[in-house]
Every structure is written in structure tokens, then in C-alpha cells.
């Protein structure tokens, strides 16, 4: 897609989307295909709409009764946070009264978004950031598949462990390193990259994050520069900062709320997914009956693209449309445009542009809402069901299943402690 046509498409989309109620919404039970793509033309990012028009992408529309607001406990905490928090000039989340960095927040820090507020975009991102950490910790064992025009190319398997220090439903834990979260991503196969691992400490404020990698060939831990965060992850279409659709440091971007509208939200499941106890991990895991996402390359007669999901569903949801531009001139991406759920503060899509402002690629992420047994009304945890990045320039995609019963998806494990995000753990992980 050329720069000009992408810009025109986007402008047209914005015009339509902002004219709320000016179009008919697709009904539950319908399927959006290249034959009826016009029904979704105000409900999808322009790049995704192009995929539909070309027949790459097919969207079954459903109706859902999911509570996207996070449950009564979370909603109550969000309401209580009203007026407590603010952003400093750099976009860092601070306590309004003291002006100090907020070290722990549970619930949305900005429950009331005023679209006319110049800081609205940044506040929405902080809501997203805090809301994703309600589950206390997350552990994913998943695969990432390289998919070309002709289908499957190769795959790697990874582990991704996240320990949150803010946003936690279980309350604060000791945080001597002053971090928002610590992430460990490691490759478990194939042989040539097995053992490659990165450890990220997302530190408070404007301090540079701590970022290390373990290289099995060297048998050493190496410190990495922040530029690696926007470098392609092992050559895939994702970069490190694409984890959870956006894992960049919010305060290192300029944020702008472009508008509000509705979007066909990608859902991993129509219903809340109850978690089951995993005694070994002392945590909660996704159940075996959760539907594993099947991509086009796995279905012989699938008519769409090999990288398109075949069994996810889409529901109409209110969305914010945001633009994030990196302050760091060295960051590989230019502006990114996000489609974020207005209640769940969960991003379903983003369009990535290069440093010259030309459209480059788009990412889709489905939402799975899970809950602990018996707590479906009080609190739900959001998580990514599928993640797919399609590079429109090269015609290449990377697909992964962060949540899948075929692998391992764990929440709130009491065994996942700070010790597992240390140098010792990183060295131990390797050969």
C-alpha cells in the first residue's frame, strides 16, 4: 500500500468513524468477506479492511455479553482512583497530591477520559498498561510461526514470563528494583536458537530500562541497548516492543487521541473463560477446552490468507483511536495507530509506519477474558489469545498463540517470584 493511498484510506475511515451512528452495524451471525466488506468499512483499520477486500481475511461477527470493565472489584477501585492520579510533563504517571511517581495502582488510574484533554491519549495508554497487570503474573509457553505467501515456513517455541509490581489484584509486593514489571522471554526450540533469552526490567519514570540477553553460544549474559526493543525478534515480523501489541515505555512516546468510533474487536472466545487450579505452579491455568486458534496455513481448503485466523470471532466494540510517536529518533518504528477498547482498555489492532511516515505493517491481537472460579463477577483478567503481524510490504506474516491449551498459559502463579527475573535465573536458564 503506497503512503498516499494509506493516508487517504485512513482519513476516509476517520471521517466515517467520527460520524457516529451514520452507518449500519453488521449483525451477529453475519460473516464479513470480500463480498460484503463495505459493511465493515468503518469498523476496521484501513489496512485490515484492505485484507478483507482482497479476500485474505474473513470475520465472523458475534454478539457477546462479556463484561469488558474488569468486574465489580476492579470497577470499584477504578472509580475510587478518579482524581488521584496525573501525568507529569514527560507523561510519567504520578500521584496528584504528592507529585511523586505512583509505585502501585490497582484499577484504572484515569477512569474518566475527556477526549478534549490534550493528555487523553497518554492517559488511555496508562489505563491499558495498568489494566493488563491485574492478573499479578502471566506465563505463556507458545509458538511463533513464520508464514509466507505460500504458507508455513518455520516456527520457534518460546516462554514468556511476566511478573507485575503494579496493577496487581493481590496487592503490592516488595519492589526493591523500582520496576513496573519484569519480563523474561526465552526460546526453547529449535536447536540453533534454543536458550536465547531476554530479561527486561521496566523501571519507573524516565530511567533507562535494564535489558539483558543470554546467548547460549557464548554462555554469557550480555547487556542490551534499548534500541533492541524495536529490532525484529529473531528476524520475525514482531519486535520486542510488539509483545502484548505494545510493550514500549509509554513515557518515551508522544500520544495523541485521534478520535473515537467502533471497531470489530477480535475475540479469542465469546464467553468468559474460567481458569483451573494448577497445584504444581500454585497458579491458575487456561482450561483444555479453550479453543486453540487455527491459522489459514493449517486448514487445507481455507479460502483466506495462510496467516489469517480461521476460528476467531469479532464483535462490535466502542474504541479509541490513538497515535503514538516515539520520542527516540533511533526507534525503528515511526507512528503507530492503535484501536483500543473503550471499556477494557485493550488494544485489538495497530498500524505501524516507518520513520518516513509510510505505512508498513499491521498487527491483530485477540482478547481473552478469564476469571478465577467463582469470581467471574468480581474480577476478570485480560490476555492475548492470538497475535499476528502482517507486513504489507513484504507479504510476510508472523503468527503466535500466546493462549492455547496446546501449550501452557498460567496466571497468578505464587511460584513465580522476583528471584526468577534475576541474573542468576537468566544464567541458569542457559546451558
Amino acid at each position, binding site marked *: 500500500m503506497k503512503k498516499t493511498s494509506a493516508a487517504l484510506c485512513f482519513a476516509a475511515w476517520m471521517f466515517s468513524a467520527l460520524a457516529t451512528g451514520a452507518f449500519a452495524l453488521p449483525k451477529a451471525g453475519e460473516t464479513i468477506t470480500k463480498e460484503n466488506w463495505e459493511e465493515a468499512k468503518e469498523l476496521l483499520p484501513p489496512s485490515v479492511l484492505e485484507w478483507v477486500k482482497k479476500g485474505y481475511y474473513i470475520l465472523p461477527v458475534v454478539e457477546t455479553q462479556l463484561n469488558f470493565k474488569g468486574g465489580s472489584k476492579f470497577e470499584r477501585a477504578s472509580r475510587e482512583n478518579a482524581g488521584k492520579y496525573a501525568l507529569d510533563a514527560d507523561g510519567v504517571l504520578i500521584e496528584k497530591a504528592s507529585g511523586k511517581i505512583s509505585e502501585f495502582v490497582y484499577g484504572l488510574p484515569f477512569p474518566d477520559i475527556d477526549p478534549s484533554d490534550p493528555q487523553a491519549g497518554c492517559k488511555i495508554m496508562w489505563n491499558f498498561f495498568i489494566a493488563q497487570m491485574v492478573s499479578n503474573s502471566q506465563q505463556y509457553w507458545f509458538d511463533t510461526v513464520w508464514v509466507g505467501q505460500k504458507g508455513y515456513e518455520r516456527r520457534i517455541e518460546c*516462554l514468556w514470563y511476566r511478573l507485575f509490581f503494579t496493577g496487581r489484584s493481590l496487592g503490592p509486593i516488595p519492589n526493591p528494583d523500582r520496576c513496573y514489571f519484569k519480563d523474561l522471554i526465552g526460546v526453547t526450540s529449535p536447536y540453533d536458537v*534454543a536458550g536465547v533469552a531476554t530479561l527486561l526490567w521496566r523501571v519507573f519514570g524516565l530511567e*533507562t530500562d*535494564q535489558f539483558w540477553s543470554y546467548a547460549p553460544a557464548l554462555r554469557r549474559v550480555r547487556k542490551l*541497548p534499548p534500541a533492541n526493543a524495536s529490532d525484529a525478534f529473531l*528476524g520475525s515480523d514482531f519486535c520486542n516492543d510488539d509483545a502484548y501489541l505494545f510493550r514500549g515505555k509509554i513515557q518515551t512516546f508522544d500520544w495523541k487521541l485521534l478520535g473515537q468510533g467502533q471497531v470489530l474487536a477480535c475475540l479469542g472466545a465469546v464467553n468468559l473463560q474460567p481458569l483451573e487450579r494448577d497445584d504444581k505452579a500454585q497458579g491458575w491455568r487456561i482450561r483444555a477446552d479453550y479453543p486453540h486458534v487455527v491459522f489459514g496455513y493449517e486448514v487445507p481448503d481455507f479460502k483466506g490468507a495462510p496467516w489469517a485466523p480461521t476460528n476467531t470471532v469479532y464483535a462490535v466494540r466502542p474504541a479509541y483511536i490513538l497515535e503514538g510517536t516515539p520520542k527516540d529518533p533511533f526507534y525503528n518504528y515511526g507512528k503507530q495507530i492503535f484501536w483500543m477498547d473503550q471499556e477494557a482498555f485493550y488494544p485489538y489492532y495497530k498500524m505501524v509506519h516507518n520513520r518516513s511516515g509510510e505505512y508498513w505493517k499491521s498487527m491483530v491481537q485477540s482478547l481473552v477474558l478469564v476469571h478465577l472460579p467463582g469470581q467471574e463477577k468480581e474480577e476478570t483478567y485480560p490476555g492475548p489469545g492470538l497475535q499476528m503481524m502482517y507486513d504489507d510490504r513484504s507479504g510476510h506474516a508472523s503468527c503466535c498463540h500466546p493462549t492455547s491449551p496446546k501449550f501452557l498459559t498460567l496466571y497468578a502463579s505464587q511460584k513465580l517470584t522476583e528471584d526468577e527475573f*534475576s*541474573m*542468576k535465573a537468566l544464567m541458569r536458564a542457559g546451558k
Partner: protein
Amino acid sequence: MRGRSPAYVFALGILLCLPFWTRGAGALEWPETPIGDASLTGKIYTQAALRTQHSHGYTFPETNAGDLVQHRNFLQAEFKNVFSRELSFFFSTRIVYEGLYDYGPEKFEPYGHKGNDLDDGHMLFDNLLVDFREGYLDINRGPIFMRIGRQNLSWGEADLFRLLDQINPLDNTFGFLEDFDERRIPLDMIRLDLDFGNAAFVQGLLLEGFVALGKVQAPIAAYGTPFSAPLPATPIEVRLVEARQKEVRGGLRLMGLTRGVNWSLGHYWTYPDAPGGRFAFSRPGDALSLYQEIKFNREMITGGSFSFFTGLDTTQTMARGEFAYAWDEKMFDPVKNTPFGPTTIFVPPLGYIPLPFGPQEGTYPDAGILRWVLGLDNNIWIRFLNHKNTFLVSAQVYGQHILHNWSETYRLALPIYGKTDPLSPDYYVKLHKNEYQATLMINTYYMDGDLVPQIALAADYRNAWYLEPSIKYRYGNFELLLKYQFIDGNFTGIGIFRDRDQALMRITYLFP
């Protein structure tokens, strides 16, 4: 095992590993890695190298451009089982068949299949090597991590230069330009890590200690093999001083993070890869019983390392450094190592003056040597060449300074081609009090990570250099590597191999 075909060797390896086969999570052992699962991973490759120039000097046998100098067939299998969060097991084995001596140029045929007197457990120029590599238990409980068994351990921050990374010996018969990981010889070792967490001004304070037992020495590439040092044939018998079974390596390292700087300080005892040498007599004072004695001597090393992000956002540069002081390194000094010595004495204004002493045994002089490396790693976006991935540019400077017991007669144990008097220090390459080298490496990813071009350069300040362009292409589970190794300059450092330029191709299959 002479005469076995590569196919036989690979089949044997696969059969050995099959009983362990199950699907699993691979090499990591973090919590909640699916426990009880086991994994088998590995690689098989075949690698051939062709000389691209005629030999001139002490390369023996003499080779011509186009001669095959290596056809290695290699299988490595790694098995891992995670019994519980606290306990896991790792085992690796490999089979290497070097076809050069069976079907390569005839000139190499006499040099294959021989056991090596200088080695223990590593059949150096046997063309078939079945090698139990690593096998260890990991025990992890609270702040304690223990790894018990045969293993490798690498300390430090430097690439290519081994300052603190001298715990495991290197197999020099494997090719001096190969990855360290394939060349490291695992040791029977106990490694213990104690994590103190945050203490005072240090985040993640970690104390690591190791003790390694057993008489494992760095094998020397033997005369007549493609990786041997450029040395003339010697009529004098070479004897290796047998290492004692009780020999011990061991040390401690403290590491942590302070104000964004990762640092480490360590001290250990080890046996460096370069042995000491001298002339000695089987029967004291009897010149007819003269032989060359080769001995690996225990050495004490103290040093440290650091790495940090420079904070220069426009260049995104990481800085790293490492230093190591070798307290008592054995030096090659022909004046002191030779049997007739001192046959000459060095008098600065007059040079070497002969003295009429009778035969006597040589000695091993010691020196204190400081070595350091400073490196900068820079991930640079060159978007018109690659819009998706950075170019990694990694540069290092290496220095070596003899601070204690310096002697003008120290030499590299390498004779200069054309010189005729082996008793004269001038017969050997001079060692300077201060030596410097530099390296540069640049690489990036193309084609969604399938294509990795790289260029590596090493230069010695005494005008010797090495250039290695390479390209790696990945297709599914197969990998093709093409590499050219170009060496030139003076006869010192890497320049001692200046008549051995070669082109190399490797095809690898990765499993599963």
C-alpha cells in the same frame, strides 16, 4: 573405529539417542517449564574447507590452492529432563568424523588415525571421535543454585579473547577459527551460585564459585594436521608431563548491578591452554637423552568485567570491558628453556654473547601479565540497507602488558621461516612487552531472519590481520554457511597462519 563411514557414525548416534526421545520444552529450566517432560535437540552438519593458496613456510604437509583440508561430519545431541522446579538433568554427546584422512589428499593420510600422546581422553587426530560432552544435574533451591557434573563455565565480557574465560580448556585440534562452544572441553565440576539479592549499593549480588577436578589439558593440534602450528619437524622426542589426577581448578566470582553497570570481580586457578616448554634429560647431564618437555602449568588469574549502556541515545552504544592479571604465566625464553643455556647471554649494547657452559636442563621463567579488552557494541539502523533489523557493530581493543619479570629474550614459541639457529633467540618471533590487537564484527538479519551476512576483522598492531566474510542461509530446519577466511601480514599473532587462506562451506540440519 578406522574405516567407518559417516553414515554409520550418524546412524549410531541417532540410535543412541532414540530411547530418550520425547517432545518437550527444550533447553530452558525456568519455573513451570512443563515438568516431567524431556527434550532431545541437536544438530548434524557436514563441513568442508578448501585451501585457496599455496603454502609457504612451516605449514606441513605442504598444501596447494584447491586442496581439501577438512571434511568434518558432526552430530551433537542434547537431552534434557526437568524432574521438578528444583531438579533437572542435562546430557549432551557428539560424534565427529573427519574424512580428510580417508578420502582427502593423500598427503594427509599418514597423519590420521593416530592416538595423541599429548591428550587424555580426546583422540586428537583419530578421525572418529565419540565424545560424551556435558552431563550435569541442576539443583535450585531458594537463593542457591548448584550444577554438578561435567560442564562448561564461561566468565567475562570479551569476544574471541580469553581473559577470564580460561576455566575450560579449548580443543585446538578442532580448528582455531571455530566457535568456542564447539571447542570447549567440559570439566568435571561443581558450580555453586549464591544469590544475595539487593545488598547495600548492589542489585542482584551474586557469588559464584567452582571447583573442577581431573587431568584435562588443552589438546595440541599435532604435526601434519591442518590446524597445527607452523613448526618444523623436530628430531628430538617430545614428552608431555602427565597431569596428575588430583589437579584442581577453582575460583570465586562476585557480580552485581550498580547504577546500571553490570560488574564482576573474580579470582581463580586454572591451566592455560598454552603449555610451557623446555629441554630436559632423561638421564641427568647426558646430552644423548635430551628431549623436549611440554608441561601445562597451573596459573592464578585475577580480574573483572563491566558492561553498561552509555546513555548516548543517538548511538545506542553499549560499553563493556574485561581485565585479567595472570600472576605466574610460564614464558617461552629460549635462553632459559634450552639445554645448553645459557649458551648465550643478552648484553644490551652487544647483543647475545655465547658462553661455554655445558649441557644443563632448561627452566620455566614466570611473568606477571595484565590483559584487558575494551569493547563497544552498537545497534545501528541503516534503513536504506535494512528497514527491519539493525546492524550489530561490535568493536574491541585488546592489550597485553608484561608487568612483572619482563625479559628481552621472551619469545613466541614459533620459529621464523628461513632462520637456521634454533639456539638463538632470533630464531623465534619476538614477544613485545606491550602487545595490542583489535577486532570488528558487523552483521544483520535479512529475509525474516533466514539470511545473516556477517563480516569479521581482526588486526594485530604488528601488522597481521584476518578478514572473514560469511553468509548464513536458513531454509526450514536446514542451514547453509559459506565463509572465506583470509589471513595476511607479518608472522605474528594471527599472521602465523598467513599461508592458510581457505573457503569453507557447512550444511547443517537442526532437530527437532
